[in-house]
């Protein structure tokens, strides 16, 4: 019976050909058989799942089917609050945290009748990882368990790819839905900022966090988005606008659509391996064959977007975790520390300049939105092995995904083929703010025209994953004694008491913080406003 897509399961449930209880039992059995080699789940909720499945079955039998998500087993990245169920952020610091209320998006999924299978692994607080020093092991890539899933929605990527959940919730601050979707060979949508509520989702960055669906197909993402999107008056970033019918948008016809190809981004700026370039050429040819009109187009260097995002988002992340970092830094994983501690080196004016630059960048995207219906570029991947990861990569590596967290419009990652060794390759489809429907339409048309969705990871029950590497030592900092002294003073002023390794993690990041800030230090007019401004709500 398994694995199924959401659309297939929904059709069979509607036709009374499949019972939600039967489906949920099969999913729980599959998790039991396979998850010991993937570690996609932090905890399962079998009693709740079966209770919800029985309720769904009874309602559907009584003729009260709520829609396509009714009776569908899904799972949540463990930063989505669940009332009465621990929500840990995969962190020792929140291991006993039990929310009193569901996140707004979780409540919407429940109102739609979905079945909660459990809570999924994540990079620590949707940020640091992969980590080898947390209370739970990192999720592994179902296509090859020696490789990372990508993150931060690591368990969501692994669970959906392995058929351990029909859909999952992820969050995306710099690429955290699209990275694991790409590396695990599934579909993941970062919706337009403000389309989905962030309320009850553990904050990474107030300015850049997006909640979003992850599923085997683009169609499944559309089905999930249909129940997730909508105004939440208690989320200050939530947009109050009508929600279109995303499923109806999947017409399959993209003839005449104008698509800008961000070739320079993946060929020169953040160069991808040759195998990805070849897969992209083939994917572009498919889009042309479907009648889309393609044209190369260039945006700013990826490093500009990365600097703008990091100088704001790291400061916001630090503000969220400031007390914990000051009082018990050793409770956090080292990878999280290697990213977050450096926020003390970001000066207030650099964060403000980053927000001002973001507004300039948003304006720069406007003519692209007028000229093109969507943009495409390569997605992340293929997945590297666990032992190749170093925390300093966060500061060093350019990003194919972060430009679209800054632009804020929808961005979809989807599978466009496989390495000869079997690891997935990906493409991103990027759209105008609140035009998520066109992005889904293009992704769905591509998916229908290709056969990649017919291939699933081959997993053997009882197989043991290879051992994890040890926690890597901090990368030696390329700074002199005077700079170390300065950093020590700043750390003391911030009230941090760091051990030697933690201080080394901080020092290693320092040159990169300065480089990023330097990119944005230039004369500006006082009229250049930041992207985040204060507004009065309705009285």
């Amino acid at each position, binding site marked *: 019976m398994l694995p199924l897509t959401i659309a297939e399961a929904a059709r069979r449930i509607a036709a009374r050909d499949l019972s939600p209880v039967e489906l949920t039992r099969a999913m729980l059995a599959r998790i039991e058989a396979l998850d010991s080699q993937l570690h996609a789940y932090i905890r399962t909720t079998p009693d709740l799942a079966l209770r919800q499945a029985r309720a769904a079955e009874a309602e559907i039998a009584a003729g009260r089917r709520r829609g396509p998500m009714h009776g569908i087993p899904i799972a949540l990245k463990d930063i989505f609050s669940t009332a009465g169920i621990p929500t840990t952020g995969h962190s020792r610091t929140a291991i006993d945290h039990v929310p009193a209320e569901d996140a707004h998006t979780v409540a919407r999924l429940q109102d739609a009748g979905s079945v909660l299978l459990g809570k999924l692994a994540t990079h620590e607080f949707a940020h640091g990882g992969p980590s080898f020093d947390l209370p739970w092991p990192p999720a592994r890539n179902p296509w090859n368990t020696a490789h990372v899933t990508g993150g931060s929605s690591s368990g969501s990527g692994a669970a959906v790819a392995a058929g351990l959940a029909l859909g999952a919730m992820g969050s995306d601050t710099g690429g955290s839905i699209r990275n694991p979707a790409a590396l695990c060979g599934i579909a993941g949508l970062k919706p337009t900022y403000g389309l989905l509520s962030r309320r009850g989702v553990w*904050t990474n960055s107030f300015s850049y966090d997006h909640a979003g669906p992850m599923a085997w197909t683009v169609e499944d993402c559309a089905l999930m988005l249909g129940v997730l999107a909508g105004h939440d008056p208690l989320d200050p970033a939530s947009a109050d606008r009508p929600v279109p019918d995303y499923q109806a948008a999947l017409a399959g016809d993209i003839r005449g659509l104008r698509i800008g190809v961000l070739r320079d981004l993946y060929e020169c700026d953040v160069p991808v391996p040759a195998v990805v370039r070849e897969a992209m050429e083939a994917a572009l040819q498919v889009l042309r064959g479907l009648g889309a009109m393609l044209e190369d187009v260039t945006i700013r260097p990826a490093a500009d977007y990365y600097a703008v995002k990091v100088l704001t988002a790291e400061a916001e992340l630090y503000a969220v975790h400031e007390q914990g970092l000051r009082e018990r830094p050793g409770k956090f994983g080292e990878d999280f520390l290697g990213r977050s501690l450096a926020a003390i080196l970001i000066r207030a004016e650099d964060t403000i300049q980053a927000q001002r630059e973001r507004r300039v960048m948003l304006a720069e995207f406007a003519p692209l939105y007028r000229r093109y219906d969507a943009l495409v570029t390569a997605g992340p991947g293929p997945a590297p092995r666990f032992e190749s990861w170093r925390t300093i990569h966060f500061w060093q590596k350019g990003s194919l995904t972060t430009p679209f967290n800054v632009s*804020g419009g929808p961005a979809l990652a989807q599978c466009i083929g496989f390495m000869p060794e079997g690891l997935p390759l990906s493409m991103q489809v990027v759209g*105008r*703010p609140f035009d998520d429907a066109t992005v889904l339409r293009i992704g769905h048309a591509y998916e229908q025209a290709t056969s990649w969705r017919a291939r699933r990871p081959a997993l053997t029950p009882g197989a043991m994953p290879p051992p994890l590497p040890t926690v890597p030592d901090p990368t030696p900092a390329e700074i002199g004694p005077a700079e170390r002294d300065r950093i020590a*003073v700043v750390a003391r002023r911030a009230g941090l008491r760091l051990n030697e390794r933690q201080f080394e993690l901080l020092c290693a990041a320092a040159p990169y913080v300065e480089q990023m800030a330097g990119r944005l230090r230039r004369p500006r007019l006082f009229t250049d406003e930041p992207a*985040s401004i204060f507004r009065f709500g309705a009285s």
Partner: protein
Amino acid sequence: MPEDLELDFQSALRVAGITVPEDRTAIMLDAYRSYRALVAILDEPMPYAEEPAAAPRLAASPRR
């Protein structure tokens, strides 16, 4: 500790590339102490759900 505060102040000036004239140092250091006192007022635990007053908002997508 006053010594620490003065060291912090000198460090912050150095990072910002600012030189304070000798005859202004004492009054600026005093201002820095006042600033640190203001920061201390905000130094309290805050749940992650406490959002900033300013949130980014995207304009509607431009028409073709």
